[in-house]
C-alpha cells in the first residue's frame, strides 16, 4: 500500500516536531549530518538523535551532543522520584507566606546581564543547572516561601532554562497544536484538537471511504484524513482557486506523488457544472504517440493522465457517490451545502465546521426543514486540562479559547408524499413531552441514557413532513 505514514523511529529526512521544556514547539527536518539550533536552548547534531523512538527526550550536552532522557521533565516534576536535575538545593522553607514581601526585582540579586554571561559559559544543560542554583541563591526571600511555592518557582525556572527537548512525530494532533499554540490559530480557522476529533468521527472518516472535502486550513483537514486512511480510499478536494491550497504539506512526510494519488482536486466551478467541465480532449492514435519525441511523449502522456483524472473525479461527482462530506471553509455553508447534499450516497454523514456557531445556526434552520437530511445537530466540545499534583488537583487556570463548532447530519432519500402520522394535538404533545422527561429522568439515573430526549414542540414541527 502506498502513502502509509506511521512514524515509529526517528529517521533521516523525516519531518518532525520538537517540544521544548517551555512547551514551545518547532517543526524540523532531519537532514543527514545537519545541526538543529534551539536558540537559547542550545544546538545539537541530527545524527545524534536518529534511531531513537519518536517521543524520545534528550538533554543537550556540550559540543552538540545529546543525552537521551526518560522524559523532558525527568527529575523536575513535583511528583517524580527526586529533583536530581537541580542538585544542591537545600533551603529552609516557611509554613506560610506571612513574611513574604513582594519587592519585585529588589529580591533578586542576580542581574539579567549576569545570567546572559553565564549562558555563554557553555552549551550544555550543566549551565542551566548552575543558573538556576545561582538564581535561587540570589533570591533574597526564597526561604520565606512555602515549600509548595518553592517547588513552583523552581519548575518555572527549569522550564525557562533547562536545555532539553522531545522529538515528536508529525501526528495530526501535534501539527494542529503546533499551529494553534505557536503559530496563528486563525490559519486553521480556530480549530481545536477536540473539535477536529468530532469532525472526523461525525463524518465517519475511515480507511476505504471516498470523501468530499472543503479545506481552508492549508491542508490540516486533508492531512488528518490521509493519516486516518493510510493510503486506502480517496479525497475529492473542492477548492475555490486555480489550485487547492495545501501549504502545510510542504513540511510533512507526504510526497507530491503520494498526495496526487489520494487527493483529487476539483474547483467549485467544475463541481457545479461537471458536464460542461469535461475535457473535449481526444486521445491520439497509438502510432502518432509512438512517433513522438521523448519529451513530447512524456508531456502528452502526462496530459492524458490528467484528463483521465479529472474525468474520473467528475464521474464521482455526477454519480453522487461520496461516502461523506467534511466542510471546513469560510464560504457560507448556507449558500453551498444544500447543493452538495445530493452528491452523497444514502445514509452517509457529513460534518460542517465553523469557528462561529452563528454561521451554523443559519444552515441548521435550513436543514431542519430539508427532508434529505436527518439529525442536523450542532456540537461543541471543549477540553479542560488539570494539574495532577497529589493533594493539589485542580483545572489549569488558563487555556486557549475558541475551538469552533461542528454541525453533522445524515443524508437520506425522502419519499414523495410521506405524511407524518406523528401530528398530535397540542395537549397530547405536552403530555408526551412530560412523560418523556419523566422517562428520561428515570433512565438517566439508571444508565445515563442520552436517547430519551423530550420531544419539543418545534422539533415536532420540523421533523414531521408537510
Amino acid at each position, binding site marked *: 500500500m502506498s502513502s502509509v505514514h506511521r512514524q515509529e523511529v526517528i529517521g533521516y529526512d523525516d519531518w518532525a516536531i520538537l517540544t521544548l521544556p517551555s512547551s514551545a514547539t518547532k517543526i524540523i527536518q532531519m537532514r543527514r549530518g545537519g545541526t538543529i539550533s534551539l536558540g537559547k536552548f542550545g544546538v545539537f547534531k541530527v545524527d545524534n538523535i536518529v534511531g531513537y523512538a519518536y517521543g524520545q527526550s534528550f538533554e543537550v550536552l556540550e559540543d552538540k551532543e545529546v543525552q537521551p532522557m526518560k522524559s523532558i521533565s525527568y527529575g523536575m516534576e513535583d511528583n517524580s522520584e527526586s529533583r536530581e536535575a537541580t542538585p544542591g538545593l537545600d533551603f529552609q522553607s516557611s509554613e506560610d507566606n506571612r513574611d513574604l514581601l513582594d519587592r519585585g526585582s529588589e529580591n533578586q540579586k542576580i542581574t539579567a546581564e549576569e545570567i546572559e554571561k553565564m549562558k555563554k559559559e557553555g552549551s550544555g544543560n550543566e549551565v542551566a543547572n548552575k543558573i538556576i542554583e545561582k538564581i535561587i541563591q540570589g533570591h533574597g526571600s526564597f526561604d520565606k516561601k512555602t515549600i509548595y511555592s518553592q517547588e513552583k518557582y523552581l519548575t518555572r525556572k527549569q522550564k525557562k532554562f533547562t536545555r532539553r527537548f522531545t522529538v515528536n512525530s508529525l501526528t495530526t494532533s501535534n501539527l494542529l497544536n503546533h499551529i494553534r499554540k505557536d503559530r496563528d490559530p486563525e490559519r486553521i480557522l480556530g480549530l481545536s484538537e477536540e473539535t477536529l476529533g468530532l469532525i472526523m468521527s461525525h463524518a465517519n472518516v475511515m480507511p476505504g471511504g471516498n470523501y468530499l472535502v472543503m479545506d481552508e486550513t492549508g491542508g490540516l483537514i486533508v492531512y488528518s484524513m490521509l493519516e486516518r486512511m493510510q493510503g486506502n480510499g480517496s479525497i475529492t478536494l473542492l477548492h475555490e482557486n486555480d489550485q487547492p491550497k495545501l501549504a502545510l504539506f510542504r513540511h510533512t512526510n507526504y510526497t507530491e506523488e503520494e498526495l496526487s494519488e489520494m487527493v483529487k482536486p476539483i474547483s467549485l466551478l467544475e463541481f457545479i457544472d461537471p458536464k460542461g467541465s469535461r475535457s473535449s480532449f481526444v486521445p491520439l492514435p497509438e502510432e502518432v504517440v509512438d512517433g513522438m519525441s521523448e519529451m513530447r511523449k512524456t508531456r502528452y502522456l502526462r496530459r492524458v493522465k490528467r484528463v483521465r483524472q479529472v474525468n474520473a473525479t467528475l464521474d464521482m461527482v455526477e454519480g453522487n457517490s461520496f461516502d461523506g462530506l467534511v466542510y471546513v471553509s469560510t464560504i457560507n455553508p448556507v449558500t453551498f451545502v444544500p447543493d452538495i447534499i445530493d452528491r452523497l450516497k444514502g445514509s452517509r454523514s457529513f460534518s460542517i465546521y465553523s469557528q462561529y456557531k452563528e454561521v451554523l445556526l443559519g444552515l441548521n434552520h435550513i436543514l431542519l426543514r430539508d427532508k434529505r437530511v436527518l439529525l442536523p445537530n450542532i456540537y461543541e466540545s471543549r*477540553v479542560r486540562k488539570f494539574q495532577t499534583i497529589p493533594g493539589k488537583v485542580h483545572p489549569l487556570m488558563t487555556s486557549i479559547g475558541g475551538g469552533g463548532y461542528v454541525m453533522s447530519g445524515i443524508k437520506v432519500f425522502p419519499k414523495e408524499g410521506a405524511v407524518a402520522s406523528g401530528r398530535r394535538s397540542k395537549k397530547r404533545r405536552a403530555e408526551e413531552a412530560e412523560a418523556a422527561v419523566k422517562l428520561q429522568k428515570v433512565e438517566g439515573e439508571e444508565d445515563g441514557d442520552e436517547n430519551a430526549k423530550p420531544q419539543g414542540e418545534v422539533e415536532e414541527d420540523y421533523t414531521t413532513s408537510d
Partner: protein
Amino acid sequence: MSIIQYKDIIEEGDLVLIYINRSQLKPITIRKGDVLNTRFGSFPHDSMIGLSYGSQILTSKGRGFVYLLHPTPELWTLSLPHRTQIVYTPDSSYILQKLDVVAGSRVIEAGTGSGSFTHAFARNIGETGKLFTYEFHEARYIQAKKEFSEHGLDKVLTCTHRDVCKDGFVVGKEQINGDAVFLDLPAPWEAIPHLEKVIAKDRRVGICCFSPCVEQVMKTVEALNENGWTKVEMTEVSALTWESRKEMVREVGDAIKRLKDVKRRQREGIEQLKKLKKKEEEEREEEEEEEEEEEEEKKKKDGEIEVEHASKKRKYEKQPKEKDRDRGYNPFGKGRRVAEGEEDFEWFDVSKNEREIKTHTSYLTFAVFVPQLTPRENGEIK
C-alpha cells in the same frame, strides 16, 4: 456486512438502523418474512431488501414512515442496548484523535462494556489494524462478542473474557504489540503493571484511562509514573449540543403602541360600561345583596382571599367576549399565535442547549510510554 465498511444496497442479513424519530433508533437484522412493528405501523423486511441505504419507507396505508440507515459507530452508540455506562462521541472522538488511532493501529481496550467504543476503534483501525478487547463480566462478554460477529468485526478484533487486573492481557501466542491503550475499568491502576508485556517495544505507545472520580485518577497517575509512563496529563471533555431557534425581534416602540392601544380600549370600555351601568345595576342589585351577605360570612371564616377571588370572578364575567374578536398579532399573549420563524416578522437566529446536559462523564488520564532504544554502540548507529 460490516459496520466498518459502507455498502449501498440493503440485503438479507444486514444490520439496519431504523430511524423512527429523533430519539428512537432501532437496530434490526434483515430477515425474509420478518416484520418490523413500530407505533407508526408495520414494515415487512421484504420491502426493505434491495433498497438503498438511507431510503424512507411508508406503511402500507401510507400513514407513517421510517428511514433505513447504515450503521456507523456513532449511530450505534445512540441505538445500542445499554448494559453499562457507555463512552459517548465527544469523549471517544477526542480519545481517538489524541491517541492517534488510525488505519493500521493496534489497540488494547479493557473493558469492553457495551461495546460502543469498540466499534469506533474498529472503524478507525480498519482491516490493517488489530483491536484486543477484554471484558470480565461473562454475560456482557458473550453479548458483545455476538454483536461484534454480527457487525462483521471479527476480522479486526479479538474479544476475550478476562479480568485483566488479575490475569493480564496476554492471549494465546499472538503478539499484541499495542500502540494505543484504553482502560475503562474501576481500578485501572491494577491493570497498568500488566501492560508492559503487551505494548509495542519499538515505538511510542499512548494510553488513556477513563475514570469518573478524582481519587481513581490519582491512583492511576501514581501507577503510570511507577510503571515508566511519562507525559501524564489529565483532562476532561465537556460537550454541548445546540438547538437552533428563532427569537422574535421585539421592539420597545411596539410595546408602547400596545400600551396606548390598551389605554384607548379602556377608555372606550368605560364609555360603554357607563351605558350598561344602569341596566346592570338594576339587574344585579338583588344578586349582589345576596352575595355580599355570603361574603361577609366567608370573610369571617377564611379571611380576605376568598373575597378577592369572588371579586375577580365577577370582573371576569363583566368583560365582553374578546376571544372571538380578531385583533391580529399581539406580542403579549392574547391574539393570534405566531409560529417560530414565521414570515412578516423579524427574527434573531439563536441557539440553546438541551434541557438536560451532561456536566461530567469521566476524567481522561493520558500518558505515553517511550521505549528507551539504544541505536548507538560506541558512537556508531547500529
